[in-house]
């Protein structure tokens, strides 16, 4: 395992020390509970937004704490959801009287831990908590009898858009409803050229030959739905875009935010090259790109690969997307 770390057991806490040191003007970190907060206290009457999940997906979620996005993010161990104590502490801390929205990616562990936290927070402090569970990964068959689809790229777009709505002073019910709508209108699909290595495991989660790729991967180094021969970017783009487009709810004439995300180990050069392929496919499908995002935003440690997320948008969503945001990971207009 080749990593810039000390003891694998200390990776998350030391990275949080680094985040705190690098962003003293904007962030405050509760190191004991592993919670990244905005520096400023929550504004009275603003709905609090918290998210969290396993570490290893940076900048998600800690890097999205700040004006116009999250109020707090709870960091779990690498690829392990945080524990209810963390979400409870964060929930209480960011409750400014208008309630708190939990943004949860649909993984069994994340859902259960957030659920326990919401139950405890409601019982304990009387904080009104609503949750949205993102489940945009079309690689996974959806069914009543399974764990359902994973939450992936849409989570980033949702945190931005819903963050803007919360900043405008909307109520918890409105913010939660908007979050659900954003989730329902977004779909993603990802692929990997290489595995990642969980520090505590010390070796790659899966092995891929020089001429193979995994299609339909998650963001935790889970193997994908299919192992396929390595293909040119053009074909990879189609493998990702086609299942997204053939799923609800996109059609000719629709506008989308097109998001090409790197898994952590793929250079920006390749991500832009992929974006070119994706943009051409969308153009051919008669879909308008209202806004785009290209870069490493929801990653799997050092995995090479990418994912494509499309979020169907209307003027309101675009306006919320364009609203000022000031976080380490996403910043404009501020």
């Amino acid at each position: 395992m080749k990593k810039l770390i000390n003891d694998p057991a200390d990776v998350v806490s030391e990275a949080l020390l680094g985040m705190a040191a690098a962003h003293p003007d904007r962030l405050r970190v509760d190191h004991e509970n592993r919670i990244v907060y905005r520096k400023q206290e929550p504004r009275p009457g603003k709905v609090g937004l918290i998210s969290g999940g396993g570490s290893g997906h940076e900048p998600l979620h800690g890097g999205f704490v700040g004006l116009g996005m999250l109020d707090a993010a709870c960091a779990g161990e690498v690829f392990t959801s945080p524990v209810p104590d963390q979400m409870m502490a964060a929930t209480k801390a960011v409750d400014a009287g208008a309630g708190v929205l939990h943004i949860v990616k649909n993984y069994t562990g994340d859902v259960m831990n957030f659920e326990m936290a919401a139950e405890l927070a409601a019982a304990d402090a009387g904080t009104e908590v609503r949750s949205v569970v993102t489940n945009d990964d079309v690689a996974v068959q959806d069914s009543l009898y399974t764990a359902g689809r994973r939450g992936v790229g849409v989570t980033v777009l949702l945190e931005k858009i819903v963050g803007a709505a919360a900043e405008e002073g909307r109520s918890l019910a409105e913010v939660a409803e908007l979050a659900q709508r954003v989730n329902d209108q977004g779909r993603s699909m990802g692929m990997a050229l290489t595995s990642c290595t969980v520090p505590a495991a010390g070796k790659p989660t899966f092995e891929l030959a020089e001429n193979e790729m995994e299609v339909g991967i998650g963001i935790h180094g889970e193997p994908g739905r299919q192992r396929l021969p390595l293909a040119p970017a053009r074909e990879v783009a189609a493998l990702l875009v086609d299942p997204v487009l053939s799923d609800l709810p996109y059609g000719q004439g629709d506008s989308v935010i097109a998001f090409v995300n790197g898994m952590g180990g793929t250079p920006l050069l390749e991500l832009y090259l992929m974006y070119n392929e994706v943009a051409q496919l969308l153009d051919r499908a008669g879909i308008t790109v209202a806004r785009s995002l290209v870069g490493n935003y929801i990653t799997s440690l050092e995995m090479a690969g990418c994912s494509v997320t499309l979020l169907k948008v209307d003027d309101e969503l675009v306006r919320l997307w364009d609203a000022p945001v000031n976080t380490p990971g996403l910043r404009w207009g501020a």
Partner: protein
Amino acid sequence: MIDKFAAWLRDSAQVLHDNAAYLTELDSAIGDADHGANLDRGFGAVVAVLDETSFGSVDELLKKAGMTLVSKVGGASGPLYGTFFLRFGTALAGAELTPVSIGEGLRAGVGGILARGKAELGDKTMYDAWAPALDAYDAVVASGGDLEAALTAAAEAAAKGRDATVPLEARKGRASYLGERSVGHQDPGATSTTLLLESAARTLA
């Protein structure tokens, strides 16, 4: 009896520590390569609690173990095993400790796993080890067997349930994302459940 339950938790912690790499290996194939590290961290914390605190009753001990797991593990297994010990402890509160009451406690604990995880038999989860284990336990107790016999039967049944997860296609947990590709791999959670029950058979009776 408190000492025996404490011994069980300590022994489990040791066994899970020794098998951490193996559990993570299983989790690499159909999950995210952290099950061993998760349980090692969690049970290590339970042992630290045992070192620091003295408990007045088994139910207090088990509830504290459950809360510690909930607070330290995270992921899917944290709430599941945490809830198991919480409900196991709660069920034993005020009860005399007999093979029957312990069996009822175990069933209450597994009820917690079901309540949280909503798994069904054959979903390729830890429940596939727990379910046959509970039945085997109860059968031995019903036919007059003692705690050691009941726990031994439970551990054996769990091992069979664990092995039976191999050919299954996962429908719950992270392995479910793999669909057909989950077939042919042993479930990490069913494996750790079996380790816990084998430890119980060794230490609890």
